């Protein structure tokens, strides 16, 4: 993820229900919310913020398909063409016996492919000193970040809107 820079207003909320209900009202007043940071997932939050639905499922499916194809190709090629052997009088390509490994490879590719897609798309990488708006976002507070550059409203105006909509604190953060 691109490094943050500039001036931000940081609204601190005490209660997950308050912030969830505040978001539509704040957006209605014309304030553009950059992002909300919470200690646990709140259902409906991404929808309230207008984030598009994640497409990671499509990636997962494609990785699964790759795993499935790789396993089948390897087994059919080795057992059927590269070095065929008669085992228990069965066909060289005895498909039912290939099902377990095909399944395992599908799961393996999907899980790791999806996990790394998740890490990359969210910019998650070993970084001991990430840029955070408020450290309490991983403890008990719900943090709303507003990029002043991207908002037409004045700083005072935004502070008033946040305050009116249940923010406990409004801080200024500069990177």
């Amino acid at each position, binding site marked *: 993820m691109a490094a943050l820079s500039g001036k931000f207003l940081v609204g601190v909320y005490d209660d997950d229900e308050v912030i969830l209900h505040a978001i539509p009202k704040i957006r209605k007043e014309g304030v553009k919310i950059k992002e909300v940071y919470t200690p646990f*997932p709140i259902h409906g939050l991404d929808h309230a913020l207008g984030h598009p639905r994640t497409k990671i499922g499509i990636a997962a499916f494609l990785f699964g398909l790759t795993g499935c194809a790789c396993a089948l190709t390897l087994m059919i090629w080795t057992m059927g063409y590269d070095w065929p052997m008669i085992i228990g009088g069965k066909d060289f390509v005895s498909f039912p016996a290939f099902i*377990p490994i095909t399944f395992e490879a599908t799961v393996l590719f999907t899980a*790791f492919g999806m996990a790394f897609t998740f890490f990359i798309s969210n910019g998650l990488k070993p970084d001991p000193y990430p840029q955070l708006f408020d450290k309490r976002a991983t403890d008990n507070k719900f943090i709303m970040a507003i990029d002043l550059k991207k908002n037409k409203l004045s700083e005072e105006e935004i502070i008033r809107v946040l305050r009116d909509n249940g923010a406990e604190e*409004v801080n200024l953060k500069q990177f």
Partner: protein
Amino acid sequence: MQVTSPVRFPLVTGSKTYADITEDICHHVESKPSREWKIAFGISLLVLAYGTYCLAWTWWEGLGVWGLNKTIGWAWDITNFVWWVGIGHAGTLISAILLLFRQKWRTSINRAAEAMTIFAVICAASFILMHMGRPWLAYWALPLPNAFGSLWVNFNSPLVWDVFAISTYFSVSLLFWYIGMIPDLATIRDRATNKVSRFFYGAFSLGWSGSAKTWARYEYVSLILAGLSTPLVLSVHTIVSMDFATSVIPGWHTTIFPPYFVAGAIFSGFAMVQNLMLITRVVYKLEDYITIDHIETMNKIITLTGSIVGIAYITEFFIAWYGGVEYESYAFINRMGGPYWWAYWAMMTCNVISPQLFWSRRLRRSVTFTFFISVVVNIGMWFERFVIIVTSLHRDYLPSSWTMFSPTMYDIGDYIFSFGLFFTLFLLFSKYLPVVNMAEVKGVLRSSSEKLPEKIGGVAKERQTVV
């Protein structure tokens, strides 16, 4: 907001705020190791050291140091392997299957149960390496063309399926456990006061910020991983059971093995979760998170799976008679009344009778009794594997080959090794990582707390505006 029926038991007692949860879990990670922990860790290391000595000698001298003979070629090694893999099923069951079933009570036990799964699978894998005798050639089990031409592994063999199943299960479980832990590692990072923990927890939390977008994807990833892990966990023990079921040994060659092994795995896994959680709960004072109701729910699963296992034993017996195959019925009559009758009846008593005691509400809500039964169940499940493996082998087709198995100190020592390894890893986990999934417990706090505090967002602080 979600509404929870009043008949559901509260998952968190004691009127906690979000900050309380962070504090209750994190202070164990942040404080210096206690004396009890150091003693327990010291004992584990000693056990591990003795086990390592036995294992080193096993590898140096060869598998001849074990009590195996020409009739019984598999004994404690595979018994221990199946036992550990079975134990390793509960963690993923709790975190994956119970997630799909929306069982919220899993939130406070899933982290430790998954850790247990991973360590148990490591122990199981160590027996695979051990019974190979020449562990430096373990890569022969992988599909690599060998030096003499392109002879490949036999993909029709359940032993090769097992290589794929166990390694996939281990790596996917590890991934699931790690992804679930990232938010909690970030919590520890943001509370860290010294540079070392700031650096390490910071690095492993991958710069987690808790943004709404990340959480949405995180939940989606968790859901798909759970969906994948559910058939995976069932496939692993199915494939383990096929190591036996696809052979033509009477007593092994039965189609009931896959479901029966899976039920047995969940049964023993939950028993081990109970053992570990009952101790962790007292030592870490987690009674508000792991309540008697949690213990009771797990006991119900133990009774259910124990009953499935019991029915499987009886069905197997019935089919051995009804099938009319002489060898098959002899194998089963020999199990029950042959020279290994004591192992068979130990298995029957521990696995079939003991979990039925949990029909009594008073007993299944008793911590001491639960702990006792969990130990009994684990002993019983070890005997189950011993009975299946050794009693099926020890009467060969040729009566002149009939033998008994007696373990040597290296059979026992290698088993001790796995205990040393398991408890060393679990103690390290319980000290340096959060034992309860804080983010998930916070997520269910509002709907499932016994009594909500006045301000759920924590200690009220002075309002301040810095402009």
